[in-house]
């Protein structure tokens, strides 16, 4: 296949530098969750970067410019694309990188490069764009079902409010207890909050962004931002770390200016309500709980302390930590939409999380991401070690 299109044209100079700057020290392999479950160094960060350097050398190096660009081996290109899509884009490699590569942002950029070449996305990821276009969500579920099965009948939503809640597609279709609890807790705080109707609350764009399919991102962003702005929203509360990540980091880009409202993770909103006494927890728990940091919440936007502070408000609960926590947390396997194609990897990673939680003697494993919630629950099925999985707001709603 003749594939001589530049490999650096659509990357930032910073990212090109990052690719050139990898020292191949391989420290990242010890922290990569995909390596932990596959042991396949051929798909590791330094190997992917080495291959990408070869692509750059073939098309963009001084030699290529003087003597002509070389054809890229089709198989190598396909292998690279598969490796970059097998990654969970959790960014653990970048966090411990002795050089400081920002891999949580680099991998999506390289995925996009592959998509532009017609290699990737793979499997179910390919269907997401059409599904979002048809139904507003990547799961191809009917839009009218978005809130139907889980939204508590007794909760009243304000038509207009400065506070809005965005449930997100994964929560709404795959992690019902989580989003149900979000709404219950928001209601208990007592401040009126609004939501978009089921047909208007469309995908935030993250699944498309992370799989390199950027065509619809501006449209989705504009649709959502305008709808919330019309409702007079000043603070958009969301429990999905992936949504929070793209909303705070990328929506302003796709929207073309600063957003007319702030993005807040639900743990931040609840923490403030607890501190100000607007939310009171009447029940305690005599339990050991372990909190798992979602990669896109901790490494992505730095929300690390707030969920812990919320959990510390539960009387009697003993909060324990994973060995890798905070910015160094280990992906549960649900990241980067890789779970849609590399299912076995995701299950194995989820089981690593379960195993450690059980070994540390936790009574409950607390999550705060719908993708983690769905995948770790799936990983539990048929696994020899068992633990109760609970979403952070599910736990809080129990204590109200």
């Amino acid at each position: 296949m003749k594939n001589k299109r530049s490999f650096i044209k659509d990357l930032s100079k910073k990212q090109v530098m990052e690719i050139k700057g990898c020292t191949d020290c391989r420290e990242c392999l010890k922290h990569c969750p995909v390596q932990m479950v596959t042991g396949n160094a051929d798909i590791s960060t330094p190997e992917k970067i080495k291959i990408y350097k070869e692509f750059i050398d073939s098309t963009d190096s001084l030699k290529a410019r003087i003597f002509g660009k070389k054809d890229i081996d089709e198989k190598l290109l396909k292998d690279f694309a598969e490796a970059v899509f097998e990654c969970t884009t959790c960014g653990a490699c970048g966090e411990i990188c002795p050089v400081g590569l920002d891999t949580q942002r680099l991998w999506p950029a390289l995925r996009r490069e592959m998509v532009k070449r017609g290699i990737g996305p793979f499997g179910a990821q390919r269907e997401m764009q059409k599904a979002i276009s048809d139904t507003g969500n990547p799961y191809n579920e009917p839009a009218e079902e978005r809130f139907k099965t889980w939204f508590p009948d007794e909760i009243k939503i304000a038509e207009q409010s400065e506070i809005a809640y965005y449930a997100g597609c994964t929560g709404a279709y795959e992690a019902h207890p989580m989003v149900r609890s979000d709404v219950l807790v928001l209601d208990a705080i007592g401040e009126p909050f609004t939501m978009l109707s089921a047909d208007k609350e469309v995908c935030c764009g993250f699944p498309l962004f992370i799989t390199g399919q950027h065509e619809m991102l501006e449209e989705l962003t504009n649709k959502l931002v305008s709808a919330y702005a019309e409702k007079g929203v000043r603070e958009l509360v969301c429990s999905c770390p992936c949504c929070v990540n793209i909303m705070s980091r990328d929506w302003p880009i796709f929207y073309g200016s600063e957003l007319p409202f702030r993005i807040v993770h639900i743990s931040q909103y609840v923490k403030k309500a607890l501190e100000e006494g607007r939310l009171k927890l009447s029940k305690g728990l005599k339990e050991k709980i372990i909190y798992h940091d979602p990669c896109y919440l901790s490494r992505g936007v730095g929300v690390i302390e707030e969920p812990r502070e919320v959990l510390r408000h539960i009387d009697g609960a003993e909060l324990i930590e994973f060995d890798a926590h905070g910015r160094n947390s280990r992906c549960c396997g649900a990241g980067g939409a890789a779970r849609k194609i590399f299912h076995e990897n995701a299950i194995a990673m989820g089981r690593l999380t379960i195993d450690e939680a059980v070994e540390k003697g936790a009574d409950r494993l607390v999550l705060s991401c719908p993708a983690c919630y769905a995948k770790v629950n799936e990983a539990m099925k048929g696994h020899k070690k068992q633990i109760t999985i609970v979403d952070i707001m599910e736990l809080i709603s129990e204590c109200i």
Partner: protein
Amino acid sequence: MADGSTCYSKAMEILVTGITYGILAVAYWRGISAIVLVCGHSEPHYRPLAKSRVKKAKILLNAILDIILFRRLLRVNRALWIGEWVFHVSFALVLLGHLRYIMQPVPGIVMELNCIGKHAGYVLPLSLLYILIVRLVISEKGEYFSVRNLVLVSVIFILGATGVIMRYFVRPDVIDIKHYVLGVLAFDPNPLPLDPVFLLHYILFLVLLLFLPSHILAAPIVMIEARERDDTFVPLGHEE
């Protein structure tokens, strides 16, 4: 026809111009990367430019310390850090010591550097041995050490070892070597000294140049970016 010394000074001018251009190009890239977009878009959450001068100076100082002391590696692998740091410092000193072979007349400071480089020459192969031991035996799994790295480390190890051999055991004619090197730099080659140890040393140096890792130039820039990213990172909801 220009004589040797004119050619030499012209070559040096080109070298200095090239390095200056490289530094300016990097500075330009840094300027761009401060505003350039990730995935082709700007990234508001990433705040590359600190507002106050004190903050900027602090970031720069931290970045310089990151580069000089390999602080990021220190954070993740202390055993490897000491080996890598000693290796890179000794390698730099040995290289500086070699300046005497490409300069005529040799400035006093270069002679002093040569003296330091002589001692660093001992340390260089030892540090590489230490890195190999840490990589292959002590630290985690051997397969985490790539073949590429193994070859590179071996080449530098033999380079260092032949350097020590030439200094203390087999002494080739330094005048001939310098004559040859200055000729190459002036595009007016003189006869290549045929001492076998020197030839091995020289061939390995050329091999090293061929496979010189790109990270030598790029990694320090990435480290500056990373320090800037770390020091200006504002967690969600904590914006001013």
